[in-house]
C-alpha cells in the first residue's frame, strides 16, 4: 500500500510554520579565529593548528590543520557546544605548483676601486661594498583542500580550515572529513577527481564528473588538454602542430588513447 494514502485526510494541509521569531532572537556570537585556535589546542593536544592570515578585506582568516589530527579537530569543531560548526558548506581544492622564487639578497664583498690618494694621485684600494643580488630557489608545490564551516545551530560562520598535502606527485593523501560531515561526500570526490587529492577514509572515492577511465587531473594548473578529443574527428594542421609539441609527454587521457588501450 502506498504510504501516503493512510495520512490522507487526518493531516493538516498546511504543515508549515514560521521560524521567524526564533531567528530574530539569536544574534550571531562568533569567537575570533585566534580564540577558536586556542580552544582547539586546549581540547586536542598536539593538534598542530596554524593561523593563516588573509590580507583581503573579506576578513576571513583560516586555520591550517595538520592532516594527522584533522579528523579529531573537525569532530571537536562539530561537537563543541559553543562552536557547533554542524554545517560544512564548501569543500574546495587548490593547486599550488612548484614555483621559482626570486629573492633579493644583500651581499657584501670586497672590490678594488680607484680612489683619490692623499697626494692627488689615483690609487687602487680594496673597498667593501654592499650589492643586491637576485637569487632563485624553487619552493615545492602542494595541493590544498579548503573547507568552509558554518553553524546552523548558532547561526555563525564562516570558519575556514585548510589542509595541504606533502607534495603534488606521490604523497597526495589527506584524511577525509566525510565521516564528520556527510556534506563532504560528493565534494571530496570532486576534489579527488579534478585535483587528485586522495582522501583516506572516504567511503566511496570515485571520479564524479570525469569518466572513470580518465587519467589526468583537469583542474591542476599544469594540465594540458589531450590532442585527440572526439570533437576533432579530422586532425587539422593546428592540432597536429600542437600534438607535435606535446610529443613525449605522457597523455593517455584522450578518447583515442583509451580506445587503443582497450584493444
Amino acid at each position: 500500500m502506498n504510504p501516503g494514502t493512510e495520512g490522507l485526510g487526518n493531516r493538516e494541509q498546511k504543515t508549515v510554520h514560521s521560524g521567524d521569531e526564533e531567528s530574530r532572537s539569536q544574534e550571531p556570537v562568533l569567537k575570533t579565529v585566534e580564540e577558536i585556535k586556542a580552544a582547539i589546542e586546549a581540547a586536542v593536544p598536539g593538534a598542530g593548528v596554524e593561523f593563516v592570515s588573509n590580507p583581503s578585506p573579506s576578513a576571513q582568516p583560516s586555520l591550517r590543520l595538520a592532516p594527522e589530527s584533522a579528523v579529531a579537530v573537525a569532530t571537536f569543531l562539530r561537537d563543541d557546544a559553543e562552536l557547533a560548526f554542524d554545517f560544512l558548506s564548501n569543500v574546495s581544492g587548490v593547486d599550488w605548483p612548484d614555483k621559482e622564487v626570486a629573492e633579493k639578497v644583500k651581499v657584501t664583498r670586497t672590490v678594488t676601486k680607484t680612489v683619490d690618494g692623499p697626494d692627488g694621485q689615483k690609487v687602487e684600494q680594496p673597498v667593501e661594498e654592499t650589492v643586491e643580488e637576485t637569487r632563485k630557489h624553487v619552493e615545492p608545490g602542494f595541493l590544498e583542500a579548503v573547507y568552509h564551516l558554518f553553524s546552523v545551530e548558532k547561526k555563525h560562520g564562516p570558519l575556514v580550515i585548510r589542509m595541504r598535502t606533502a607534495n603534488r606527485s606521490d604523497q597526495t593523501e589527506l584524511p577525509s572529513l566525510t565521516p564528520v560531515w556527510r556534506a563532504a561526500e560528493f565534494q571530496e570526490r570532486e576534489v579527488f577527481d579534478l585535483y587528485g587529492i586522495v582522501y583516506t577514509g572516504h567511503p566511496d572515492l570515485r571520479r564524479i564528473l570525469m569518466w572513470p577511465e580518465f587519467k589526468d587531473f583537469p583542474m591542476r594548473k599544469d594540465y594540458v588538454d589531450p590532442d585527440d578529443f572526439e570533437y576533432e574527428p579530422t586532425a587539422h594542421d593546428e592540432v597536429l602542430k600542437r600534438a607535435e609539441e606535446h610529443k613525449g609527454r605522457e597523455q593517455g587521457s584522450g578518447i583515442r588513447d583509451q580506445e587503443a588501450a582497450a584493444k
Partner: protein
Amino acid sequence: MSVVETKAEKVAGWNRPPVIEPDGEGELLEVAMGPHHPSTHGVFRMDVALDGERVIRLKPVFGYLHRNHEKIAEGASYLASMPYTDRLDYFCSLTNNWAYALAVEKLVGQQVPERAEYIRVILAELTRIQNHASSIGFLIQEMGASGTPLMYAFKEREKILDLFESLTGSRMMCNYMRFGGCRVDVSAPWLDATRKVVAGLPAFVDEFEALLSTNEILMARCQGVGILRPDLAVNAGVSGPMLRASGVNYDIRKVDHYGFYDRFQFRIPLGDHGDIYDRYMVRVLEMRESIKILEQALRELPAGPIMDSKAKIRGFRPKAGEAYGRIEAPKGELGFYLISDGGSNPYRYRVRPPSLINLTVLEDMCLGHNVADVVLIFGSVDIVLGEVDR
C-alpha cells in the same frame, strides 16, 4: 561498477544511508534511470537496484554536462565570468550573478549603493517566484498531470521573464549584476510593469494552491514519501527549501544580513515532516513571502546611483587574498570561493553548487520506496544539471 556492491560499506563511522536487505524472493534488477529520462530534468543518471518495485540501492551518476566551468573562469578576467555564471543554474541567472558579484565585492571590499541593492532584491525575489512555480509545475508533471499544471506555472514565469528581458535584454541569460552595482538602471515604465505583475501574483498563487494543495493525488503521493531527517539534512549540507522543509530554521537572507533583507518584513516557512509535501508547501509559502518582500521593495525603492563611484571596471585586479560569498538562491546556498594572487584573473574560482550537494541525500530519501516515487523524490529536490555538473 555494479550498484549492488559499492565500497560504501567498507568504511565505518560515517552518516551513511541505511542498508536495505532484499526480501530474498526473485532476483535483483539493476536499472539505469537516465541519462535520457524525461524525469531527470536534463542528463543525469540514477543507477538503482530494485527488489521487485522497491529501491534497495541508488547511486547518482553525474558529469554529462561537465565543462569545467571553474577552469574556464580561472582563464578569464573577473568580469568575463559574469555572463558565464548565468549558465550554471539557467533558471535563476540573476541570483547566480548576485552570488558571484557578492563574493568579488567581499574580495575587494566594494560597497554597493542602496538603489542597486534594492534592485538586486527585487530581481532575486522575482527569480525565486518563477523558479519555485516552475519547479512545482515539474513536480506535478512527474506525478502524471502532464502539461496543464506546468503551463499554469509557465504562464506566470513568462510574465516575469518578460520583465527580465525588457530590463536586461535577455530572458534567461541576464548578465545583469556588476561588481559594485548593476548594469543598467530600472526605468519608471519597467517599475510600473513590475508592480502590475506583482499585483497579479497573489491571485496566481491562490489559484495554483487551490488546484493543488488539497488535491487527492498530490497528497496521496507526496505525504510521508521521501522523508529527510533534520539532523541528516544539516550534516549532509542540504540547504534551501529542502532544509527548511525538514524543519531546520536556516535562511541565509536572515542569517547573513546581506542585501538589506533586514529591512523587509518576511517570515521563513518551515516544514514539520520533511517529506515531499512539505517541500512543495514550503515553496508555495516562500512564493507568498517573496511577494511580500517585492511589495515592500517596490514601495521603498530609493533614488540614487546604481553603481558605486569607486567601483573599478578597467584594470580590475584585487589584492592577493581570498573570500567566500554566499546567498540564499532559490535552490539553496549558492556560494563562490575566490582566491586572488593579485592578477586580473582569479587564481581559484570555486562554485558551491546547491543542486549537487542537495543530491547527497538522494539515496537516503529513496531507499525502501517504489521506483515510481524515486521520480517524485528526485523532482522535489529541485536541481538544474547546468549547476550540478558545471
